[in-house]
């Protein structure tokens, strides 16, 4: 098996992009990724493509969603959908194919159009899910974990809010973030209630966006850069609350499983991770993810964020980009953008949000839900500065 490196990354500013179509966004992200390759790349050097999208706007239900905006015809392209882990799953699939030798240079493109009507397309999908899921909405699914985590471990409302404060602080310094404001704990707990115990500032916004990553095998990576970032490990797993596992009431078991697979493949442990971009669709998700990834002990997530360990200048910075809470969550683009952010961090090119601990290993994580909000899927990718 060959080693695989990220050699280029591009994205667009996330936001409410009514004036842009799915193809407009994908094209811009692709062009930015081409521009990012140190020694340049010709589009015809790309062997294969993976498109990550949930296709909410209905413009990308096959590989054509990648070929049309990028001109990448006549090569194999797969569309990947894996709930909110769509982008990270597309990256994982591309890495595995290049590792196995079926392509030398591959494009991973994540794109999602979440806004094309006043309510947002996601609102229509949510209505349908509400019926089928007996009234279980996204904030409810995650809020259940918050209520139980507070009950079981004494986690406070203020500790949960600290995640939002941190990520908005980081997002205010990150040029591609949807929201650029800062807030304090008081603002979070005073914001309108969505689903007790979660308030508006505990929830990520509805955001359009696209991101593109170019990867290459060890055989050709040197042609494109002297500073490749290596795909060191990856994991993917699924679980369901309805399996009756009590630990699933306060955690996302699939994350622990995916993380262990990724750590094993990279031959490292959670203590070796220097920077992480994790799934914070809601504040509680990130707090629980510290525990699921092994960054702290079960039940200590609240204390972990309160002590500042996960801040930009902390020992284990999490979501320097502002995370989904500030940056937004265009489903297919989210994971690809996170990969790009870790790539920038490991190359020392993250600008105002560059972490200061000379990062060697970075982790990217998504969690997705499905089956009437009872199941979960998790994908974890580890990138490394050294091969």
């Amino acid at each position, binding site marked *: 098996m060959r080693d695989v490196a990220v050699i280029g990354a591009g994205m667009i500013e996330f936001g409410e992009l009514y004036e842009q179509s799915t193809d407009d966004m994908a094209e811009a992200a692709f062009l930015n990724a081409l521009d990012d390759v140190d020694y340049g790349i010709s589009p015809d050097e790309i062997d294969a493509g993976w498109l990550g999208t949930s296709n909410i706007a209905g413009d990308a239900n096959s590989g054509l969603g990648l070929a049309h905006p990028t001109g990448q015809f006549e090569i194999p392209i797969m569309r990947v959908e894996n709930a909110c882990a769509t982008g990270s799953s597309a990256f994982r699939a591309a890495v595995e194919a290049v590792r196995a030798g079926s392509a030398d240079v591959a494009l991973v493109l994540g794109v999602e159009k979440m806004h094309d009507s006043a309510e947002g397309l996601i609102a229509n999908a949510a209505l349908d899910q*509400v*019926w089928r899921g007996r009234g279980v909405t996204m904030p409810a699914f995650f809020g259940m974990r918050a209520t139980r985590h507070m009950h079981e471990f004494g986690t406070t409302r203020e500790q949960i809010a600290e995640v939002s404060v941190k990520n908005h602080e980081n997002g205010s310094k990150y040029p591609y973030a949807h929201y650029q404001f800062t807030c304090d704990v008081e603002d979070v707990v005073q914001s309108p209630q969505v689903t007790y115990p979660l308030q508006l500032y505990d929830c990520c916004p509805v955001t359009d966006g696209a991101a593109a990553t170019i990867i290459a095998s060890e055989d050709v990576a040197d042609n494109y850069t002297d500073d490749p970032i290596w795909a060191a490990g990856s994991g993917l797993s699924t679980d369901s609350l309805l399996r009756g596992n009590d630990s699933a009431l306060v955690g996302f078991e699939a994350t622990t499983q995916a993380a262990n697979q990724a750590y094993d493949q990279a031959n490292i442990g959670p203590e070796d991770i220097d920077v992480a971009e994790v799934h914070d669709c809601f504040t509680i998700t990130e707090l629980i993810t510290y525990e699921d990834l092994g960054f702290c002990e079960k039940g200590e997530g609240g204390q972990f964020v309160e002590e500042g360990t996960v801040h930009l200048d902390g020992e284990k910075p999490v979501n320097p980009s502002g995370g989904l809470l500030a940056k937004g969550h265009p489903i297919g683009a989210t994971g690809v953008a996170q990969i790009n952010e870790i790539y920038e961090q490991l190359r020392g090119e993250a600008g105002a949000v560059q972490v200061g601990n000379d990062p060697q290993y970075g982790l990217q994580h998504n969690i997705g839900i499905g089956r009437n909000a009872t199941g979960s899927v998790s994908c974890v990718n580890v990138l490394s500065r050294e091969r």
Partner: protein
Amino acid sequence: MHEPPHWRDRPQNERLLARECRTCGYVSFPEHRRICKRCQDEVEWDEVRLQERGTVRSYVVQNRLPDEFETPLPLAVLDMPQETDGEPARVYGLFTETEPDDIEIGMVADADLRQLFDINGLPVHSFKFKLPRGER
């Protein structure tokens, strides 16, 4: 259209019928297939009935929902014991006739057959939860 899933789920929704795995005791509800989610194997199942009184394991109170729903709307994940011995089933349940402040983890709640909503004029019946009579 969601009519077919509704018809398939009627024994579970309207009669609280579950299946218990003969090998490991896992209770499948509302699903009832040949493969057990815990054994991960094709197993024998016994049909079991669930009690109408369950225990709240966690909950939320939904305040922002489509117009079709009255808010604030409490929603919980509950364990519903079998009528005889064995493990409980874990279910999601909407609450009705219940003040949000009255809900807490560990409390018991009773399942009551209600019209959940209608799809194109077709009423869909299932259970909702409420505080036991005498505690309201």
